[in-house]
């Protein structure tokens, strides 16, 4: 199982029946592949749709039914559409139960940076700031480290996406939560020891006596 699949499978386990879920681009998008249709999770696309379905078969695309990247998608039976003010009303007020987003850095208290790198081109925050400020539960799905540097940091050096801490980070090495605001190692990836996780983690984490392995 590759790193992305580990992350996506583990995040999928966090979704509950009937949840309204918004998935960001990149690894988060893969999460939908591991959610059973029986769970009746609603996926929102912030460009104005609840009930997104799989990529349509060739020839069945429609230019007016797209995801937030402008790519053709399908709509499941019972889907609904709305304008952008409504879409972000749903997000900002916590009607969206779970959002899964990528991250650049998450700090020891759960603060997230994922929208800009000073000195580099700033593409814009899109919906990320609203999602992190407003969704009921925010899960960050990302690689544990990039270019050998921990993305779980003591304090974000990059600009924050929100002053509101996130709820959970799932990486290729670990699951980290923030009970009482303190970064806590909750699970390790299959075959990865606590020591191996901590060796590549900049932030100091609370490490319980027993840290279970992810069940994937």
């Amino acid at each position, binding site marked *: 199982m590759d790193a992305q699949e580990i992350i996506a499978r583990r995040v999928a386990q966090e979704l509950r029946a009937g949840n309204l879920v918004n998935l960001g681009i990149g690894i988060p998008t893969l999460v939908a592949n591991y959610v059973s249709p029986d769970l009746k999770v609603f996926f929102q696309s912030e460009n104005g749709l609840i009930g997104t379905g799989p990529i349509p078969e060739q020839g069945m695309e429609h230019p007016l039914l797209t995801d937030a990247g402008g790519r053709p998608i399908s709509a499941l039976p019972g889907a609904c559409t709305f*304008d952008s003010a409504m879409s972000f009303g749903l997000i900002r007020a916590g009607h969206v139960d779970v959002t899964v987003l990528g991250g650049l850095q998450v700090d020891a208290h759960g603060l997230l940076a994922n929208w800009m790198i000073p000195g580099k081109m700033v593409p*814009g925050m*899109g919906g*990320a700031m609203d999602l992190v*400020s407003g969704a009921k539960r925010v899960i960050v799905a990302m690689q544990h480290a990039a270019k050998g540097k921990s993305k779980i940091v003591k304090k974000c050096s990059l600009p924050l996406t929100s*002053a509101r801490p996130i709820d959970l980070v799932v990486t290729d090495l670990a699951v980290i939560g923030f009970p009482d605001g303190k970064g806590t190692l909750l699970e390790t990836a299959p075959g990865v020891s606590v020591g191996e996780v901590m060796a590549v983690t900049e932030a100091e984490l609370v490490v319980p006596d027993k840290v279970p392995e992810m069940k994937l």
Partner: protein
Amino acid sequence: MKAVSVEEAVAMIPDGASVMVGGFMGVGTPERLLDEVVRQKKGNLTVICNDAATPGKGVGKLFDATLVSRLTATHIGLNPKAQQQMLANRIAVDLIPQGTFAERIRAGGCGLGGVLTPTGVGTLVAEGKRQIEVDGKPYLLETALRAQFALVHAFLADYLGNLAYALTSRNFNPVMAMAADTVIVTAEHIVPVGVIAPDHVMTPAPLVDYIITNSNG
């Protein structure tokens, strides 16, 4: 509502105008109007649009033709030309959170001075903005946004000006249709009055100033 040709409609837009453009990654954008803006070389535009789309598509065409001098958007990550023009300081770009973008336009169209949003509190977005507490919780005051023109794309329009949008092409079109002095609309289909059921109209006729009738789409 007045039916006009696309040439007449775009001729009304002066150089330097502020223009809201509906659409999300070019989906739900009035392409025919933008083509004509390019043809008539309307320059120095202030564009208010969710994103910069991609080269050759939607508002991307305006960057291809270097007609934009200011842009208010939520992201421009998929349009290298817009990025280059921003980095070369040829466009002043104001990037704001997407929910805030939607609410500021809605406020402009609904006669509100602004809204209090939690989005952006404690981030770079808060710089220069008033922070206001309600029941001990901090919010940013985000003020109303309006434009001289809104270029809107509907799925159905009737001859009174009632509009309905299809699927994800609705996006910012309905809020923009309320937030500009002059609203110009293209539609995939123009239908007789009464064909759109009252409950299915998304933009009421009195909001629409002009509908392009010389070619659909």
